[in-house]
């Protein structure tokens, strides 16, 4: 199979300056399991574009680092 990597606009934005390295809150609650930590920076980011825009990640973030946008296709 021949594959390519395409750029996509993802709905979840993490403000890295606010994201705590020891925290995992958003990653633990996401029902779609689409958020992970960047092993190099220790900051959370959206790895998979599979979002229900349900907001638990945003609500549970202790520092308000997360903003969930409506996915581009629906906006």
């Amino acid at each position, binding site marked *: 199979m021949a594959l390519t990597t395409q750029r996509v606009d993802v709905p979840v934005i993490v403000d890295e300056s606010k994201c705590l390295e020891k925290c995992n809150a958003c990653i633990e*609650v996401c029902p779609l*399991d689409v958020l992970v930590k960047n092993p190099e920076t220790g900051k959370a980011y959206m*790895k998979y574009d*599979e979002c*229900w825009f349900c907001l*638990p990640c945003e609500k549970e973030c202790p520092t308000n680092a997360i903003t*969930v946008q*409506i996915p581009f*296709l*629906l906006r």
Partner: protein
Amino acid sequence: MTNTQQLKTDVLVVGGGTAGTMAAIKAKQANPEAEVLILEKANIRRSGAIAMGMDGVNTAVIPGNSTPEQYVREITIANDGILNQKAVYQTGKLGYEVIQELDSWGVKFQKDTYGNYDLKQVHRVGKYVLPMPEGKDLKKILTRQVKRHKAKVTNRVMATRVMVKDGRAIGAVGFDVRNGDFVVIQAKAVILCTGACGRLGLPESGYLYGTYENPTNAGDGYSMAYHAGAELTNIECFQINPLIKDYNGPACAYVASPFGAYTANAEGHRFVSCDYWSGQMMLEIWKELNSGKGPIQLKMTHLDEDTISEIESILWSNERPSRERFHESRGENYRTHGVEMHISEIGLCSGHSASGVWVNEKGETTVPGLYAAGDMASVPHNYMIGAFVFGRLAGTNAIEYVRDVEHLEPDIDWLAAEKARIYKPMQNPDGIPHTQVEYKLRRIVNDYLQPPKNTYKMDIALNKFINYHDTLDLMGAKDPHELMRCMEVHFIRDCAEMAARASLYRKESRWGLYHYRIDYPEKNNQEWFCHVNLKKEDNNMTLFKRPVEPYIVDVNLEKEVYDVKVTSK
């Protein structure tokens, strides 16, 4: 090399959403000594349909407002007579206790100044809607109770099959969606609570996960019950909802209509007399949209500022809170705009319509030791309270059942075959991505299976779904997360085949738009006043008629026809 985890429990609950958390709590209440384990694909703290709470109870039968008999009658009429009344009666009878118990745990329901539950009328007849303006912490409260009752929880493990031996359920297998471990759980009874099949049709936006249902619920339980040999029923009675156009939440008349909002066409005229979701209502919406009088809208512009603010504060804090930013990004405001509504993608869900795994009034499926509850268990229009009630019934009855049975060893060859099936996409990491395989499958669903249904189209659909096994074999996964999505596509394919076969089998129209066939446009009680059930027999999907159980509440269906059409506009 894949690591294998072996677990053992008395009662295994698959899916820790609304029904699953309640099933576990009730099983532990019934016998605190018994081992109860919840297996959850996500994290029970925020999983499933009520991950962000709920705006209200849709089907609350509260003494002084309605009776279980009235409720059974209303659902019998709304579901065109095809139901097991004894099961629906349970929701009417036990719902009040469920609400009281949730209340005692700290779940907030709306009360009047006298402290009584403050019910609203949304149904045609009777008050059943109980608002929960502060319903956002529902799932957190349930999680606390699961812990308090000492039920065990394994998060981030997705079940793929129920294990069956000697004709009874003996556990389940699955895998850890983060580390990829193969997980085998032996149990004396299994309760499936995996929610709806929400990823069957494709939303018009084209975004795979922009579905009405929580997209984690991909029909897992429908497929697992099918492969375990259980009967499924009413699969042709699709779930189709009136939603905000392009957004996956309701407009939402349940919240807004008690305040004076209503569903209207582009001219601002009412065309349905009742906002309670039904196939009949959806058919009126479909007709209106096709009559040139669309788009349709939820009209609120005539309400005063205080009322609109109150509606907004409810709609923007629970259930689907992202709707606020949806409207904002489009520059829409309830004061100046109607909320444009449209028809959702199709799905399978007993919580909203009637399609699911066959269960009786005890939550038992047709396979001994296998129970089902919630959106995947066929108790029509069951919604959230029905999920709690059947979670409770399944939990207590499973505890009763496990008293007299022992664990059975799973079959080694079967386990090896299932393991090979699950991990196949990992062996082929450069295979076709699940996103493309899923998109194509669900586009076929839209093109050929979406009502109005017709035989030619559905024959094509069925053929394509059968051949899609070969396409599934081409899928590749680079990590356990992608593997989860791949296995979900397998579930979706199974559900699509069931949906096509059941829809072809029932040669009449029923339930409004849910099963509207162009080639058989009329209801035919003579031949089709029955359930259409299906099950796996010798590796084939077999369909058959199952008679409707004798009624316990008399309803004259000749006289009482569910009709919500407004004729004088």
